[in-house]
């Protein structure tokens, strides 16, 4: 089974952004960002693209699919 990993926390740290800042910037709630970060919520394509666009990187740099054993 594939798992979706993300580097949102890393990008936030690089951009000195809080979860609330990022949430406001892309128009979602802070809870949505925090649950995406910990892998509890798989975001829609639109949210994933908005996050990647906000950090000006390809979406694959933020989200990676890793195949499990």
């Amino acid at each position, binding site marked *: 089974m594939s798992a979706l990993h993300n580097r949102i926390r890393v990008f*936030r*740290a690089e951009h*000195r*952004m*809080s*979860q*609330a*800042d990022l*949430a*406001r910037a892309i*128009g*979602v*709630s*802070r*809870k*949505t960002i*925090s*649950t*995406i970060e*910990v892998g*509890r*919520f798989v*975001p*829609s394509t*639109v*949210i994933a693209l908005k996050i990647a666009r906000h950090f000006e990187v390809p979406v694959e740099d933020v989200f990676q699919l890793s195949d499990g054993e």
Partner: protein
Amino acid sequence: MNNQPNRAELLDRINTLMAAGALPFAALLLLDALADAGMDSTLLRVLDWSAKGVLAVVVVLLSVAVARKAKSGKPAPDEDSYSATTLRKALAASWVATFVVLTQFDSLFEGAGILGVVQLPLVYAGEIVTAFMLVVLSLTYFGLMMLASDDPDPSDEAS
């Protein structure tokens, strides 16, 4: 700093208020069924007024949140969120649970014979099953939201 909640936060609040409002509404249905069945006591009347009060507060808060959302501009093409997904899961869980209860209705109410509700008229049964559906919806929603509760973002304090 702008402390106004954004549209997404308002949508989360609306979802939470709807799930919260389901509980006093369920209580009112149950109390109504009990009253129709002839049960009357001071405790039931107090509970009835308490549930009405809580529901009124929820409705007021919900109206305010909906009005603020309406003022916040056009809806985005995609307004998905953890809260919206959780509410959908809770709705599905309540539907499944209610379906199981309805299909097992006879045996369940045979078992409830000791409570003296075997001769339950259909109108009360409808109220009870609806109340059950609302309780499952509300508890599932808040259970899933609590599972996802997280520590405050440390960077929020720095910003």
